[in-house]
């Protein structure tokens, strides 16, 4: 039985739309995975030297002990955010002649196959082999390994159980991140409290008495059975769903009302963004992206020139256009027939997209104004890039949207979801990332970088002023492609 479960899951993976049908997507996916894997291997191999660099005053093993607890707190956080609950896949089996125990066993065991469970072992094993085994002996080596595996499994089943039990919304997660970040600051920066002290305390005991490794293992077994029991008692279709549907309210976003039909469409699309899993996670990315400047602005390594500032400014003010816009109109695939058959002019449809883009970009622009702290030039670049995003990038994104025929299921999460990804997204990124530099580079080479930035802003402004002309062309393009788009969206 388990064998045929596994067989079905194998087929489900390879035949799933998320896996991506086209060869190009698969190749890129394989490269990405390989790249991630290599990163992990490299980090793991040099972990002792990295630790030595970070904590020069401490013994390597102490430093290692000090970060372990942090790792597992972060691990838990990432799991809350990214780990998928293996639920709906059991649906066809519930009514067949398969015992509940078998199904629950299968659910528990098959959920183990995830990168989250591989990563801790892969990250620490080389370190343990290099530093612990030769200098501290076999007993301690096994103690560490068992403890790490135990904690990993504990995190695994705990997050599964917790996610099913509690409705985790993003605010909860944000609060969790803030708390962890705060603790980290208090710990490493201000040295007020010390998680690393607790971590050291715990793992030093382990060092002295490797048998203690059985404690995390027992914890893992205990939570496994709690999860097992919970699953078994709740193996009903309506209760297995990961999202608890609470009361939904009707809202009216009156800000958009003054823009007529286009405004109504924009308001409806805003609800699309807020009420569905995948688009709302792209909104969260917008929030995170606003900290992008911190990577570039304070760092003297990126120089006094404008190059990196242009890059950062484009992302911070335009991330919604880029990240949400790249999948346009796929978001509306499930009701695209309605959009076509109802009384909606194509021009209004396009205008509604612009309204949405303008609103989000303006918000991120206003929120990133405080970066002026790093000099007025930063604000200048951000302003120029805002104009560029509104004037040029919106049009590029919308043009590519008329060539995107892939359906997106709104209810699926965003992480590792390849549904709707096709060649058009890869090609789209080329003009998006290079065009501002095409404008800027000639000025920069002549030593007139300031003029280059102004020119970017000016071109963007020109694009905004002439947008009706471009929209007209887009509408024409759209009406030629409309059958193809609708046809593609109908293919589930």
């Amino acid at each position, binding site marked *: 039985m388990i064998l045929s479960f596994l067989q079905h899951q194998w087929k489900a993976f390879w035949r799933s739309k998320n896996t991506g049908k086209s060869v190009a997507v698969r190749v890129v996916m394989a490269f990405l995975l390989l790249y991630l894997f290599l990163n992990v291997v490299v980090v793991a191999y040099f972990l002792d030297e990295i630790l030595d660099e970070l904590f020069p005053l401490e013994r390597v093993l102490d430093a290692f002990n000090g970060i372990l607890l942090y790792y597992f707190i972060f691990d838990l956080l990432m799991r809350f955010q990214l780990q998928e609950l293996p639920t709906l896949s059991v649906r066809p089996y519930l009514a067949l002649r398969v015992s509940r125990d078998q199904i629950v066993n299968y659910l528990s065991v098959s959920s183990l196959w995830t990168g989250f469970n591989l990563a801790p072992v892969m990250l620490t094993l080389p370190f343990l082999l290099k530093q612990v085994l030769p200098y501290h002996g076999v007993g301690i080596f096994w103690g560490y390994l068992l403890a790490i595996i135990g904690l990993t499994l504990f995190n695994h089943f705990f997050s599964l159980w917790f996610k099913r039990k509690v409705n985790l919304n993003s605010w909860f997660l944000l609060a969790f991140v803030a708390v962890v970040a705060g603790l980290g600051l208090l710990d490493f920066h201000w040295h007020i409290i010390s998680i690393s002290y607790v971590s050291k305390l715990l793992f030093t005991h382990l060092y002295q008495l490797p048998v203690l490794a059985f404690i995390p293992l027992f914890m893992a077994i205990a939570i496994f059975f709690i999860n097992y029991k919970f699953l078994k008692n709740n193996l009903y279709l309506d209760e297995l769903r990961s999202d608890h*549907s609470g*009361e*939904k*309210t*009707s*809202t*009216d976003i009156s800000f958009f009302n003054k823009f007529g*039909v286009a405004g*109504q469409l924009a308001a*409806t699309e805003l*609800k*699309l963004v807020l*009420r*569905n899993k995948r688009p709302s996670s792209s909104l969260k990315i917008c929030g995170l992206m606003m900290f992008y400047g911190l990577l570039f602005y304070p760092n003297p390594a990126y120089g006094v020139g404008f190059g990196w500032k242009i890059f950062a400014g484009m992302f911070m003010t335009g991330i919604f256009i880029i990240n949400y816009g790249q999948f346009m109109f796929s978001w509306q695939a*499930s*009701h*695209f*027939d*309605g959009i*076509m*058959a*109802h*009384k*909606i*002019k194509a021009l209004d449809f396009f205008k509604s997209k612009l309204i949405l883009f303008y609103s989000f970009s303006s918000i991120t622009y206003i929120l990133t104004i405080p970066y002026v702290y790093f000099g007025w030039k930063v604000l200048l670049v951000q302003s120029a890039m805002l104009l560029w995003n509104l004037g040029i990038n919106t049009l590029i994104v919308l043009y590519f949207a008329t060539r995107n025929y892939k359906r997106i299921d*709104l*209810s699926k999460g965003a992480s590792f979801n390849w549904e709707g990804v096709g060649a058009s997204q890869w090609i789209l990124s080329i003009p998006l990332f290079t065009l501002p530099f095409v404008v800027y580079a000639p000025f920069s080479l002549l030593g007139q970088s300031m003029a280059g930035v102004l020119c970017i802003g000016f071109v963007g402004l020109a694009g905004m002023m002439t947008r009706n002309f471009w929209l007209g062309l887009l509408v024409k393009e759209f009406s030629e492609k409309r*059958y193809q788009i*609708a*046809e593609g969206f*109908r293919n589930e």
Partner: protein
Amino acid sequence: MIEIKDLKKTYNGITVVDIPSLQINKGESIGLVGNNGAGKTTLFRIILDLIRKDSGVVLSKDSNVSDTDTWKDYTGSYLDEGFLIEYLTPEEYFYYIGSLYQVSRADIDVKLEAFTDFFNGEILGKKKYIRDLSKGNQCKVGVVACLMQNPEIIMLDEPFANIDPSTQFRLKNMLKQVAAEGQITSIVSSHDLNHVTDVCKRILLMEKGLIIKDIQTDGNTLEELESYFSVMK
């Protein structure tokens, strides 16, 4: 009202719709019947300009539906859930539809009151998104949204399929009333021969893309259709 000439649509070499000529007059109530794959939904989609036809024209009030948008002003349609916006509450959806057709919220509220019986307390004020409604209730939302546009043409694809018996009776009565008033042209497809012969005054029978029968409903129509479908292999 609607005129079809030389219409042809093929998928992978198989003809799915082939209608040399069809004339639908104002106020007619058309019932579209045929087995799965006969081309009913494809015909609907072509009339609504949702799929490209290989040849021929569809004229709505003498203008080509592929070239102009004006037919959208007076055509209300509900083919499937693809017409609903699943992440809105039913109320929000009705207001959205209203805003497209310049019907104010207050007017929408008044119109919705007339459908209280039809909704049977399952749609409004339930604090659910459309995606959380059952198929039958989704169908109710779609049909009502279509009627609220003050349409001159109504097009419904298998509206009876998922709704409960009481709602079927109410929907039938609504459609009959529409037909009796003679102002609105309606095209309704169904697999339930009793319903279509009861509601529609003219029946189009499709088989493999062709309209093989075009009959005015009378006492014998039901029998005629039943005998056709019972000998089909």
